[in-house]
């Protein structure tokens, strides 16, 4: 199943793209597992996800912890801790 993935700030810069459509294999069930799988896709991904504990994630525009199941997500975003305000 294909899902849209968005990257922001230095996660976007390290990967070199703002968004893409991906098809994770069946064994990738959670957001944390997806990060691990993405990290294995190449040097730029490995660099972006080198320290997954500092990466925040959102499924369909809502913050989620890494153990969250991807399920029927339409849009998954990865980004550093927020610094707005």
């Amino acid at each position, binding site marked *: 199943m294909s899902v849209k993935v*968005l990257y*922001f*700030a*230095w996660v976007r810069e390290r990967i070199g793209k703002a968004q893409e459509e991906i098809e994770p294999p069946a064994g990738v069930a959670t957001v944390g597992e997806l990060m691990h799988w993405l990290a294995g896709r190449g040097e730029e991904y490995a660099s972006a996800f080198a320290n997954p504990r500092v990466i925040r994630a*959102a499924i369909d*525009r*809502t*913050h989620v912890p890494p153990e969250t199941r991807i399920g029927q997500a339409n849009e998954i*975003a990865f*980004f*550093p*801790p*927020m*610094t*707005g*305000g």
Partner: protein
Amino acid sequence: MNARLQTEDFDVAAEAAALRNGRTDIGAIVTFTGVCRGTEAGEPIAAITLEHYPEMAQAEISRHVAEAERRWPLMGVTVVHRYGRIEPGDNIVLVVTAAAHRQDAFAAAEFLMDYLKTRAPFWKREERPSGSAWVEARETDDRAAARWTRRKPEAAE
């Protein structure tokens, strides 16, 4: 509720006046304006650039405004967050809260700012003489936001 994301500047007085709008039941209006500083840790800042996740930022701000309205008897809330390139001395963010009494307006404004800092999907990049760099999240901001989940606000007298 009025929550906006925009590149343009905002007019603090006009936003407060719009909330008041001739009403006589409002007794307190708090406005908080976040402004771009010209130095950070002793280094001059030429500008910051704010990146954001537009759809999520709008949704996240609206959720927190709704939460503030649930916690305090508010008579109006406006949040404006700018994105794009912002220079020192220019506005970044505005929170306006209106209530019958000041305690509710102050508390709601502080709650909203604490959450905007840690939960709204915005990222600041600073232009410094040594190069440009992403701003790192502050632990003090996380602590400030966490206090709102530890205790409920006291009921207004």
